[in-house]
């Protein structure tokens, strides 16, 4: 009658339970690994860079002497770049999202645009650099300018913004749209006055995260020829420029280890800026997720 040998099951149970426990530990270990690396990375950078992080560091331009090297040009270059990227990518990205969510018919062309956007998100950033170099720097003759860099980076983060904005627009309850239409509002009035205001928190959150991605990018800007040794601030959109990641790259590639410490100081500034931007994004998300 006894089909299952209970004793055998019991003894196997012991090993199985032990196995489960051990492997739980292993999986936890793999999870913690990433965390440990993050801690080491941050610790190293802080201890290396903190010594160079003083007021002078923000006031000085690039220099051949580590103790005189500063991040002023790169810091303001990054701000200039943001000033180009933010409006360009937000306008095009949100426009695309609204088109796809509110106006586009469900046809082949729409599917094509959608697939195209998700593929664009997978193109290596350096390839965008090649595009920027050919189209903006050479064909449109913008030169190695803030404008060329900003437009290139706008295209790079466009897919991220479109996807975030689409999600935000999609999550606006249809009841709100109905209420507006039922008052005799036109489609555009409804989008402008109801859909967009309700979607703004999501759009901003996604937009800031995308922007912080752009601020940390190096490769495409190297391609379009952002300079690595700049001793002035950009004056207009057609000025040459450098940005923080490129300045950090430049310091990192120098053989003198003192410059590595300067690079670490630059990284602290860059990470602090990203931290601030991300915190703002999280704040916006938390503040508005209560409503709606």
């Amino acid at each position, binding site marked *: 009658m006894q089909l299952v040998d209970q004793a055998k099951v019991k003894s196997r149970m012991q090993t199985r339970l032990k196995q489960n426990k051990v492997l739980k530990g292993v999986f936890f270990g793999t999870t913690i690994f990433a965390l440990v690396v993050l801690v080491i990375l941050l610790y190293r950078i802080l201890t290396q860079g903190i010594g160079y992080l003083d007021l002078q560091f923000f006031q000085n331009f690039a220099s051949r002497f580590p103790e005189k090297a500063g991040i002023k040009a790169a810091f303001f270059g990054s701000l200039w770049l943001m000033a180009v990227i933010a409006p360009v990518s937000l306008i095009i990205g949100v426009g695309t999202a609204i088109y796809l969510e509110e106006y586009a018919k469900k046809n082949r062309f729409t599917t094509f645009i959608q697939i195209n956007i998700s593929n664009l998100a997978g193109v290596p950033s350096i390839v965008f650099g090649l595009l920027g170099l050919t189209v903006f720097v050479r064909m449109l003759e913008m030169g190695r300018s803030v404008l060329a860099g900003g437009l290139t980076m706008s295209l790079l983060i466009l897919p991220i913004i479109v996807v975030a904005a689409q999600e935000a627009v999609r999550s606006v*309850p249809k*009841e*709100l749209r*109905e*209420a*507006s*239409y*039922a*008052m*005799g*509002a*036109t489609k555009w*009035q409804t989008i402008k*006055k*109801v859909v967009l*205001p*309700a979607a703004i928190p999501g759009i901003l959150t996604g937009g800031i995260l995308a922007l912080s991605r752009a601020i940390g990018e190096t490769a495409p800007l190297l391609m379009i020829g952002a300079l690595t040794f700049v001793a002035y601030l950009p004056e207009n959109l057609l000025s040459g420029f450098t940005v923080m990641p490129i300045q950090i790259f430049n310091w990192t590639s120098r053989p003198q280890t003192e410059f590595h410490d300067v690079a670490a100081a630059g990284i602290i500034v860059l990470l602090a800026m990203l931290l601030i931007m991300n915190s703002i994004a999280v704040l916006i998300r938390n503040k508005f997720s209560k*409503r*709606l």
Partner: protein
Amino acid sequence: MKTIMDEKKVVKAPRPEEKKKEVNTVYSIENFNLWYGKDQALKDIKFDIPEKQVTAIIGPSGCGKSTFIKALNRMVEMVPIVRMSGDINYRGKNIFENKYKVEDLRTKVGMVFQKPNPFPKSIYENVVYGPKIHGIKNKKILDEIVEKSLKGAALWEEVKDRLNENAYGLSGGQQQRLCIARCLAIEPDVILMDEPTSALDPISTLKVEELVQELKKEFSIIIVTHNMQQAARISDKTAFFLNGEVVEYSDTNQLFSNPSDKRTEDYITGRFG
């Protein structure tokens, strides 16, 4: 209820030619059919809706009440698979005619939905939404409109000190009355209500019902309700829908006290399957 019936002479059958002499018609529906894809949701609807009265639409779930009321302001067209035939005439004009702009229709025909759906804006901004999109920008006029509309929706006393607070802070019943106020702000001619009290508690429901009684002095009201007592309490005319058809349409009193169709009787006596 009685007094209203007395004043207006009880009319037996909804013969349009006869009725026009007594009260004006806002809507006259002629042989109207509607399909969702292949499924027919409304079949050969044909009746007239009077001005400045409350017309109730009753019937079991899924019989096409919402579909019908949404056809009256063409909101139903937002469902892409909808097809329609026949005419709906509003004030003598076919609303499906090419040159009839939906925006114009909806400016004159307001709608209140089942679930309160205020915008996530201030109470004030909710009310002035309609006037603003229709081009009224003068702050003084807008202030007047807000007060008048909120008074009209019996909400003024409760919110006059917090007009700039977010509408989501209001209770469900208050939100629904705010939606009514929002609707009143553009002074529509007709107000469509799709089960406006089904998401509300009894006290809020009572308030909205009283409000409807008040509003019909100035507006023609068409109200969908699941609740037959409610239909009997507040409406002058009642249409009983079943499987997309109008089984019976007559004065509310008559429909409830002396239904002419067996199916109506079954439904109002709760004997319905």
